[in-house]
């Protein structure tokens, strides 16, 4: 699946496109398919997201959305060395998921 991520303009927080808005949680990401470029242009112009880009991902058996690249998995959960600062869903996903 092709999911869209970017950063919240005001806060810089990592966000994922849900089909109707932006979520902090990667599991909320949907497959944007061929509409990704159009969505990114519209959302960036409206300042609802900053520097969006598409990344490849898959949905696993537990329903977790897993970006293909480790960099995006680190973005999804937070620094692996400061788990106290992770997004709230990190415990559910598990840190092995990142590597």
């Amino acid at each position, binding site marked *: 699946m092709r999911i869209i991520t970017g950063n919240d303009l005001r806060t810089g927080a990592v966000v994922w496109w849900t089909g109707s808005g932006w979520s902090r949680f990667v599991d909320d990401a949907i497959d944007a398919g061929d509409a990704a470029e159009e969505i990114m242009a519209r959302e960036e112009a409206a300042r609802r997201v900053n520097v969006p880009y598409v990344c490849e991902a898959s949905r696993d058996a537990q329903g977790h959305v897993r970006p293909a690249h480790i*960099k995006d998995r680190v973005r999804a959960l937070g620094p*692996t060395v400061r788990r106290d*600062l992770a997004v709230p869903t990190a415990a559910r996903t598990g840190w092995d998921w990142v590597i």
Partner: protein
Amino acid sequence: MYRYDHYDQAMVEARVAEFRDQTRRRLEGKLTEEQFKPLRLMNGLYLQLHAYMLRVAIPYGTLSSRQLEMLATIADKYDRGYGHFTTRQNIQFNWIRLEDAPDALADLATVEMHAIQTSGNCIRNISCDHFAGAAADEIADPRPYAELLRQWSSFHPEFSYLPRKFKIAVIASERDRAAMRLHDIGIRLVTRGGALGAQFYVGGGMGRTPMIAPLIRDFVPIDQFITYAEAVLRVYNRYGRRDNKYKARIKILVHELGAEAFRREVEAEFAHLIEVGVEPPRAELERIKAHFADPPFAEGPTTIDAGDPAFARWVERNTHAHRHPAYVSAIISLKPAGDIPGDASAAQMRLVAELARQYSFDEVRVMHTQNLLLPHVAKADLPALWQALARAGLASANIDTIEDIIACPGLDYCSLANARSIPLAQRLSERFAASGRSAVLGELKLKISGCINACGHHHAGHIGILGVDKKGRENYQLSLGGSEAEDVSLARITGPGFDEDGVIAAVEKATEVYLAERKEGERFLDTYRRIGMEPFKEAIYGG
């Protein structure tokens, strides 16, 4: 310490106001990200992996207690309660909100601090020997010259859009504690016939093409050294490549022209500039020097009563000879075993600020090795200082050991990184501390970078580790034999890379070779230089 005059303060406050307006326009949609990005970068605000990151300049690594307390305030008020000290003596905050950034900069301005020129293709923060003004072996205090360079390079209109970023380091002793020859310009203060001057090394650097700076001028009279720096920058600005960012650093220009041809260009420009007269007035240097007068050192015991073995270990590893016999410089390790190199919580910053006020004439230094330093501690005060640090978990006696690892933020924070650096540093320091082997190994500088940009100085590590992306997985290349000291050298890669467990095992094997082969008094680096790479390769890769 240098204190701002009204010009300095007015410049910084004007920049805060300007950036506040630029940020407002960005948030209101009047500036696109493309338009805003260079403006925020000029104010040290990056967009990193998880959030905006603010890099704050700490000129030549010197802080007052009040300034360090403000950094703690920034950490608590605008970030998540901590900061990361960098290999260029700066500090980074990892979780700044764009809408808060102007307020953070305004708070910094109240203590004469800013984030100007901590990014972009300009002259960056001037770095310096962290023992400046305290070291027993320096021939002059390099800080006034670093400060003059700071003032000359701040907002210099000709050098605001260089081909690439530009880094300058200044030292004043034979020992190089600032990686001087791995900078775009490395300046060593020297004397010739009783006169003070500057040696200029130009074209060093790490990154994807590491190079050791050659000597370009053996002696520039001190009252012409800014002019010579300007000549170097002018030649670079004129001939440096702008078509390829990977070939745009001055080291490539010096390499491609050759040091001799480069020198001729600089000398011609220097002769021209001497005619023009660009050197700041001598009175300005004297004004600056007055800020760096000695603190009121007191006479006291010149020996240290190190009866407690733990205290004795800390004194041996973490203190450095001071030019006043009753004082030492005391290093506060930010590398407790298993912890994140260079990170300090707001509470730790406040404690160090208080200890500096109590024991070090209100002064703290940031070391490029990502530790903190109290430059002037009376020997009589050392036990009390050590006890206070120990109570806070800041008394790790591991400076320059294999636990004292330099590590960049790596893939845990940095959008450029290919692999994580910090977890590797944590596992290595924990392992060598737990086994007790780090003390046996003595001086062994291990440095880790999470990508080819080499912020973790891996090229200059006795043992260096570079994280790379191998088909989407983290992979680590091991290298041996680097040094950023006066015996500068670039490390060589051992061979094929490893996964995380594999590189840790390889480091262990390298240390075993050293222990088996070393001669009396040899450091790891000395043994490597004597026996060469082969015995290490055999041990690591099994022949």
